[in-house]
């Protein structure tokens, strides 16, 4: 899955592939617009994990993320006739999801209930853990758990907008341009937010990272 994520990241960043993906989505969208409602399932299957990932990393709550992901798909389905293909379906869907998440986070500002997914022990995770831990460290699981907790805490200390940029760029692997399109900010603003957010995260996680 690690490799597929990397492939996914490349797909999102590389523009010719991205264009091909957008074209393929547009064909499916047109079928849905033409009345073939079942074709929307293809789009759900294609994007549900990515969308869930973004929302989950912003809310740090599995149930909220699931609800918001479902709501985003419902909203997209309801408004699909108004989608004119001026942007990619992917950007449009992400925009809906981000806006829904903003609204949710603003409403539940005072509530801080986090529920985390299990971190799968994949190649990249093992690599990082190996670098962080001494070779004789027996309890890798404990270190992983601690790291996950610290990471999420640090992420939740960021503002919603900074968290969004970090999530989309560092975790989902979107380009600055794509993030600008989704969030409605300029590329410069996206870069600035990313820089500022990483500085904050660096200070929060300084015990684990090098400068």
């Amino acid at each position, binding site marked *: *899955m*690690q490799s597929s*994520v990397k492939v996914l990241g490349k797909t999102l960043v590389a523009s010719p592939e991205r264009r091909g993906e957008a074209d393929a989505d547009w064909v499916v969208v047109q079928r849905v617009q033409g009345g073939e409602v079942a074709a929307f399932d293809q789009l*759900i299957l294609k994007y*549900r*994990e990515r969308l*869930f*990932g973004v929302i*989950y*990393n912003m809310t740090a709550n*599995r149930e909220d993320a*699931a609800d918001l*992901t*479902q*709501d985003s*798909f*419902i909203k997209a*389905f*309801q408004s699909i006739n108004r989608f004119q293909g001026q942007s990619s379906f992917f950007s449009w869907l992400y925009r809906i999801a981000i806006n829904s998440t903003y609204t949710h986070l603003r409403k539940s500002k005072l509530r801080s209930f986090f529920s*985390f*997914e*299990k*971190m*799968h*022990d*994949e190649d*990249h*995770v093992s690599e*990082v853990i190996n*670098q*962080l*831990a*001494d070779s004789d*460290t027996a309890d890798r699981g*404990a*270190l992983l758990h*601690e*790291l*996950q907790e610290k*990471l999420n805490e640090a*992420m939740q200390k960021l503002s919603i907008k900074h968290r969004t940029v*970090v999530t989309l760029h*560092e*975790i989902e692997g979107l380009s600055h341009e794509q993030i600008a399109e989704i969030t409605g900010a300029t590329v410069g603003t996206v870069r600035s937010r990313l820089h500022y957010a*990483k500085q904050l*995260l*660096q200070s929060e*996680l300084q*015990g*684990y*990272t*090098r400068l």
Partner: protein
Amino acid sequence: MKSDLNQSKVTIEDLLKLKRAERPPVEFWDNFDRNLRAKQLATMMEPKPWWLGLALGWKRFTPYALPTVGALAVLAVVFSVQSVGSDGGAVLSSGGNLRETASGLLSSETSRAQIGGTDELFAMTGDEAGKVESRDFEGEGGGQRTLANVEWQGDQEITVGDASVIGLMEAVMPQNLVAMLPGAGLHLVTDLPESTLSPSARTIAGNLPAAAEWDHSIDARLGVVRASLGESVAAFAGPAQPQVLTASTGQTSRQDRLLAVASAELPGNSERLLAGTVGERLTHRLDDDLIPTAVRRLGVGGNRVSLRF
């Protein structure tokens, strides 16, 4: 735990990439799909609120509505400025009974002009019981459209709509009748230099020669229109209220117009102009504040301008 860490090799980006590994188990997606399907069905079954259609309709209409509303607003402002501030505008005396005079004019049979055989180029109809007087024009398509509405909500409130009609009126109406309409240019097309005409009046003026070539009797009939409308104005103006409405070209000042009125009252005796009742009336009329204070309320709504005297 920190003492166990080798801090020299891991960056913040590496740590954030760890978040990619946080994923729900496979069975989570079964439940997710089931819930999503249920929500989809519920949404499709749910009756849409009545206002949703309106909101969506307005959203679609908005890009086209805004320029239109803006243009109408500009038109209304220009129109109102013309009505209130223009020296070439109609002089409406606050002392006169506008409802009576205008209703008399609008309901008069003599105000019906016939031009071009059976085609009714310009007609005015009066509604004695109602509050709306309308002027209709038969266009090329044969259908009639309302060119202007004059509404009387009190004895002295006048509302004029569709300023585009003014150009047409300027072309076919005698100037003292055009003066009835606030904001009218008050010029006869043929009597003024082209630069002073409104675009619509210029178009009509340009078309008149062509129409005359096609129909040689048009000049004569226009003359009849002017004469008949002129009679009707003379009839409504009457001896009792000789100065209710006056009009002149855009170039003449208000003082000139008033002098002309006074001269008409006292023909051949301009020396006595400023004496007696006429002098008093003139003095009163020459007060520059008269027109602004005579207009008690100015209202703009859509493409309509409302003046309360």
